[in-house]
């Protein structure tokens, strides 16, 4: 009950947030929602099923380009959004095949290579992707008379989909799929022993993870109203990885905390001007040295500590 109240308050705060934010801050929060969606996907692939993916920026990019290019063809946003996810998911399933054979650093390298190749395709195949110029003039959707063109309205759209993404991830984690992912992640042989088809579930882990990233991409394109290959480099994949590791892998809260830190971190540190990238890198090292389980562990301890105090007062 208290838990529901807590989440209700959070959602209420997020709903009234735009009233208190400037244009730019609103944009940063919107961007955080998009990145959380992608990070949730990576968390399913890597955090739960333990399949390293360093090409989530490719999935993200496929979603964004699907949206940008099909919108230009006059398709409806509401039709393209699921398509963005599905295209990315199908691509993810294909990428999943190498994962059947390799693990850890080899899989990391394969996915890095895939990211770099998709980046070059986006750069060079101008007939399809617009090349380095990218796709501009991307429009925002509307339902009937309700238009999401303004930043605030699009914020609310993103908020709704953000909450849906979190609920979906909770549902997946607690479903048969989620249990299978964790079983494979912990011990593949044992999972097989229990009759879990590692073949199907590994592909599925990639496909589902990529689906979330694709949907994230589909939401990203109208947010920026412009996409170019630079937004989907291997370094962006690393950012997603950093998000879930800082936040806490294999935890629902992990990608949320991580995305907030990674997207908003440079904004908070902007007082240091050009130095923020240094501070940001330093934080990365410090978290790895002293808070390896991710920041979610701090939350856990707080959660444990607070009721204990209340209890002792009684």
């Amino acid at each position: 009950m208290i838990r529901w109240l807590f989440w209700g308050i959070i959602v209420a705060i997020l709903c009234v947030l735009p009233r208190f934010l400037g244009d730019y801050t609103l944009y940063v929060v919107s961007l955080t929602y998009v990145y959380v969606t992608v990070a949730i996907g990576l968390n399913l692939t890597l955090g739960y099923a333990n399949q390293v993916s360093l090409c989530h920026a490719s999935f993200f990019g496929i979603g964004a380009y699907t949206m940008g290019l099909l919108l230009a063809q006059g398709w409806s946003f509401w039709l393209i959004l699921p398509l963005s996810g599905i295209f990315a998911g199908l691509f993810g399933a294909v990428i999943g095949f190498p994962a059947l054979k390799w693990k850890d650093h080899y899989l990391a390298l394969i996915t890095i290579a895939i990211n770099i190749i998709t980046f070059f395709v986006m750069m060079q195949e101008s007939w399809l992707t617009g090349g380095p110029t990218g796709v501009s003039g991307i429009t925002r959707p509307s339902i009937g008379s309700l238009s999401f063109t303004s930043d605030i309205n699009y914020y609310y759209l993103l908020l709704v989909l953000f909450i849906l993404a979190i609920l979906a991830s909770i549902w997946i984690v607690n479903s048969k799929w989620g249990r299978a992912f964790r079983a494979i992640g912990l011990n593949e042989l044992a999972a097989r022993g229990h009759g879990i088809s590692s073949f199907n579930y590994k592909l599925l882990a990639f496909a589902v993870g990529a689906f979330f990233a694709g949907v994230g991409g589909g939401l990203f394109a109208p947010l920026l109203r412009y996409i170019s290959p630079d937004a989907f480099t291997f370094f962006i994949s690393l950012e997603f990885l950093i998000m879930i590791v800082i936040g806490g892998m294999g935890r629902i809260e992990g990608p949320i905390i991580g995305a907030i830190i990674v997207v908003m971190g440079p904004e908070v540190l902007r007082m240091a001007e050009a130095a923020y990238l240094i501070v940001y890198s330093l934080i990365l090292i410090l978290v790895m040295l002293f808070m390896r389980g991710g920041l979610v562990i701090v939350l856990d301890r707080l959660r444990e500590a607070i009721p204990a105090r209340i209890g002792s007062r009684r």
Partner: protein
Amino acid sequence: MANFIQLLIGGVSMGILYGVVAIGFVLLWQTSQTINFGQGELVMVPMFLMVALHIVLKIPFWPSFVLTLLGSGIMGYLFERLMIRKLLPGGVLVIVIATLGLSGFLRYGMQIAWTPQTLFFPHLFSTKPIELGDIIFSPEDIWNIVLISVIIIVLHLCIKRTKLGMAMQAVAQSRETAELMGINVRHIITLVFVLNSVLAGTAAVFAAPIFFVRYDIGIFLGVKAFVAAIIGGFNQIRGALVGGLTVGLAETFAAAYITTAYRDAFVMILLLVVLLIKPEGIVGIKEEAY
């Protein structure tokens, strides 16, 4: 044919540079399962050190070179003692992320502390082109190839023949067994980090006249060396060298005969092909790990 030889020289002179940086990767991986994403920055920092000593302070070449290698060694030592030693128990991913942080820290640190500009570095060797019939080549490329080869051969002999080198090999094969044999594994790992930095420092001095000195060159060299290490074989020093040469040659020949537009992507496709056909790398040995 002249064309072919020309491209060969170009490709090898680049490739051997990638190779020498990749050797460091391989050494780190073998002895401590460290994937160092800051490898490129370990080349970048000595480049600036060399400029500081040789150009700004006008110290003659050889003393600057020795001091640069010394500085690199100290950097490697600190890198291991302050970071890697604490992170090793956390596994590969933790190290990957921490070294990414290190890479950013050094890169932007150098930019703020010194300059965002690219700095000049003079040629080390004569640049008067040598003509042999149709083939024109530059002494710089040939010297680079010869000198780096000598360094690699010396390194190889040290690892194969000296006691310390054998201890290194023992640690690479099995840390537990090495410990039982009375080898101080900690010291060996520290030593490898120092060695890696010194190698990177050497590469820096050869690379500086070719690339000039810029704070963001590390990403470029780091990724190339990384790919070279995988293509050649992550668990063999020979592999790193073969990988480096393969990458250098593939880039050059693909750009000359296929298209320049996909120069960098072509190397990645090669990487995928190698990983799919022979994941242990061209000369690598199968590990149980995958």
